[in-house]
C-alpha cells in the first residue's frame, strides 16, 4: 500500500493505467523503427565509422598521429576519458543515490540514465586503450603472473587504482542495469508474437514470473546494489582525480580534486541525461512519463553542482594565492590569462555562470531552453578537463621545455567519433530494450479502486 500525498503532483501524468504504461513503453520495440530513429541511427553510424577509422589509424601509426609532444604527454585522450567517465556518473547517481533517498521521480528516467552510464564508460575505456599506444598489451596494468619474472604492477600508482575502479564501475553498473531490466524483459517476452522475440526475450528474462517471493528478494538486492553503488560512484571519480592529484604538477597537486571532480561528474552527467531525455520524450512521445517536473528537478541538480564546481575553481585560486607557492600561483594565472585563456573562460562561462539561469522557473521548465543549456554544460565540462590537463602541463618547470599543444585531425575525429559510438549504442538500446522502467513506473501510478481503467481525470489523486 503506497500512500499518495494529495498535495504532491503526480509523477506520471495523463491518467495512465498499467496497460497504458506497458503499451507506451513497448511500442518502439514492437513496431518498425520510426523515420526519426533511422535518421538518428544512420548519422551515428556514420560518425561511428569516423571513430573506427581514426582509432585504427592511431593503432597502426602510433601516438605520433596525435599532437602530443615531449611536454604535453596527455591531452585530448585523457580529456575525453575524464569527460566520458564523468558523464556516466549521473546514471548511477539517479538509480542508486536517489533510490536510497527514496526519490520516486527517478523511476521514469533511471533506465536510460543507467544505459547512458554504461555506454559512456565504454567510450571512456576506448580512450584508455587507444592512449596506451599499443592497445594489444592493454592487459599489462592487470596484475597477472607474466613472462618477465613475476614483475607485478605498482600498487602505489593511481593509474593502477583507476584500472580497478573503472572495470568495477563498468561491471557493477552493468549488473545493476540488467537486474533492473529482468522484469521488463519478461513483460516484452509475454507480449511477444514472433518466435524469435519470444526466444530472445525469454532467454534473458531468466524465467521471471512475477512471484512475490522473487519480488521480495529482488527488492533486497536492489537496495544493496544501490547501497554499494553509491560509494562506488564517489570512489570512481575520486580515483580518476587522483591520477592528477597525487602527482607533483602545479595545478594538479591539490587536495580539493576528489570532491571537485565528483561534483563536476554529476554536473556533466546530468547535462547529458537532459540532452538525451529531452530528445527521447519528444521523439518517443514520453511527455507523460518524463514530465516538466522531472526536468525541473534535474536542472536544480545541474545548478547546484555547477555552482559547486564554480566554487572549486575559485577555491583553487584562493589556495594558490594563500599558499604562497609561486609555481602554483603561476599555474593558475597562466590558466586564466595565458595562451589558453579562451579555454579557461569558456569553462567558467559554461559551468559557473550559465547554470545560474536555473534560478528562474521558466528556465527550468522550458525544454528547448534546457536542451541548449545541457549542450553548453557539456561543452563547459569538456573544457574543464582540457584546461586542467593541458594548461597544467604545457608550462613545464624549465622554460626551455615550454610547449603548446594543438590537436591533430585524428584526435578531433576520435573525439567526434566517440559521440557516434555513444549514440549508436543508445539508438540500439532504444530499439531493443524498454527505455522506461515499466515495473517501477507502474508502482507509482495511483491505484483506482472501483473505476480502474475507465474514469481517469487528469490530476486526480487518491490517498490509499
Amino acid at each position: 500500500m503506497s500512500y499518495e500525498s494529495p498535495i504532491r503532483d503526480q509523477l506520471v501524468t495523463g491518467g495512465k493505467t498499467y496497460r497504458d504504461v506497458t503499451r507506451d513503453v513497448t511500442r518502439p520495440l514492437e513496431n518498425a523503427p520510426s523515420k526519426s530513429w533511422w535518421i538518428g541511427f544512420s548519422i551515428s553510424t556514420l560518425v561511428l565509422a569516423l571513430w573506427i577509422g581514426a582509432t585504427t589509424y592511431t593503432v597502426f601509426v602510433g601516438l605520433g598521429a596525435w599532437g602530443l609532444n615531449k611536454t604535453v604527454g596527455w591531452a585530448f585522450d585523457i580529456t575525453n576519458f575524464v569527460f566520458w567517465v564523468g558523464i556516466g556518473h549521473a546514471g548511477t547517481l539517479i538509480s542508486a543515490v536517489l533510490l536510497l533517498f527514496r526519490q520516486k521521480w527517478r523511476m521514469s528516467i533511471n533506465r536510460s540514465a543507467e544505459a547512458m552510464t554504461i555506454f559512456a564508460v565504454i567510450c571512456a575505456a576506448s580512450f584508455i586503450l587507444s592512449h596506451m599506444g599499443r592497445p594489444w598489451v592493454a592487459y599489462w596494468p592487470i596484475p597477472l603472473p607474466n613472462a618477465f619474472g613475476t614483475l607485478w604492477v605498482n600498487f602505489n600508482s593511481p593509474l593502477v587504482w583507476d584500472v580497478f575502479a573503472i572495470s568495477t564501475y563498468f561491471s557493477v553498473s552493468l549488473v545493476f542495469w540488467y537486474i533492473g531490466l529482468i522484469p521488463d524483459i519478461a513483460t516484452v517476452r509475454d507480449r511477444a508474437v514472433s518466435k524469435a522475440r519470444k526466444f530472445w526475450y525469454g532467454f534473458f528474462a531468466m524465467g521471471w514470473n512475477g512471484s512475490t517471493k522473487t519480488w521480495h528478494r529482488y527488492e533486497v538486492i536492489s537496495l544493496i546494489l544501490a547501497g554499494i553503488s553509491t560509494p562506488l560512484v564517489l570512489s570512481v571519480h575520486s580515483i580518476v582525480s587522483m591520477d592528477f592529484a597525487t602527482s607533483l604538477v602545479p595545478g594538479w597537486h591539490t587536495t580539493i580534486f576528489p570532491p571537485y571532480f565528483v561534483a563536476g561528474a554529476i554536473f556533466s552527467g546530468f547535462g547529458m541525461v537532459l540532452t538525451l531525455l529531452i530528445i527521447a520524450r519528444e521523439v518517443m512521445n514520453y511527455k507523460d512519463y518524463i514530465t516538466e517536473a522531472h526536468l525541473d528537478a534535474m536542472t536544480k541538480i545541474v545548478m547546484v553542482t555547477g555552482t559547486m564546481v564554480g566554487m572549486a575553481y575559485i577555491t583553487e585560486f584562493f589556495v594558490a594565492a594563500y599558499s604562497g607557492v609561486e609555481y602554483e600561483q603561476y599555474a593558475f594565472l597562466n590558466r586564466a590569462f595565458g595562451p589558453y585563456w579562451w579555454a579557461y573562460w569558456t569553462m567558467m562561462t559554461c559551468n559557473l555562470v550559465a547554470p545560474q539561469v536555473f534560478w528562474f522557473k521558466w528556465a527550468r521548465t522550458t525544454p528547448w531552453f534546457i536542451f541548449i543549456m545541457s549542450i553548453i554544460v557539456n561543452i563547459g565540462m569538456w573544457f574543464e578537463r582540457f584546461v586542467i590537463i593541458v594548461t597544467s602541463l604545457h608550462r613545464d618547470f624549465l622554460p626551455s621545455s615550454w610547449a603548446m599543444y594543438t590537436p591533430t585531425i585524428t584526435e578531433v575525429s576520435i573525439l567526434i567519433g566517440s559521440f557516434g559510438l555513444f549514440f549508436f549504442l543508445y539508438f540500439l538500446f532504444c530499439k531493443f530494450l524498454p527505455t522506461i522502467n515499466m515495473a517501477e513506473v507502474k508502482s507509482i501510478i495511483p491505484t483506482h479502486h472501483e473505476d480502474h481503467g475507465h474514469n481517469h481525470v487528469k490530476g486526480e489523486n487518491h490517498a490509499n
Partner: protein
Amino acid sequence: MQTNKYILGVYDNPDKIYSTTKKLINKGYKVDDVYSPFAIHGMDRLLGIKRSNLTVAAFLFAMTGLTLAVTFQVYVSKIDWPMIIGGKPNLHIPTYIPITFELSILFTAFGMVTCFFIVNRMFWGKNADIIDPRVTDDLFVVSIQIQENKTDIQALNQILVENGALEVRERIKD
C-alpha cells in the same frame, strides 16, 4: 493433505488483491504465492516471507573481496617481489585502500546477484512458468493451494469473486 491443485484469482488492482489475500490468510486458506507486475508494498510480509538472507551473503562476499585484495597486495609488494619506488616503503597500507574497496564492491555485487539467481532458480534460457501472460503487464494473480478434504472450493470461489476477481481458474502444477 496438500495437492498439486491450485485456485487462481485474477485481479486488476493491487489494493484489491492485497485485501483479498489478507482475508484468505485470516480464514486459514493456504495462499501459495501472489504474482504481480511490480512489487506490492507489504505483500511479502503478509505472505509471511522471511527477510531474505541475501544481505548476509552480500556481507560475506564483501569480506571475501576485502581479504583477497589485502592478501594479494601484501603478498605482491612485500613478499613476492619487493620494489622500492620513489623511496616509499614496500608495505604501504594506505595505498591498498582504493583497490581493496573496489574489489570488495565487485565481489559483493557479483556474489550476491549470483546467489539471487540460484535461490530463485533463475538462469539464462529458462522456460518461464507463466501463470498468466498478463501478470507482467497489468494483472495480479493470487494462487491458493488446495488441501484435500479441507479446502471448501465453493466458499473460496465465492470469496475471490466477492472481492472483485475478474476470473477464477484452476491450475494443476506438476
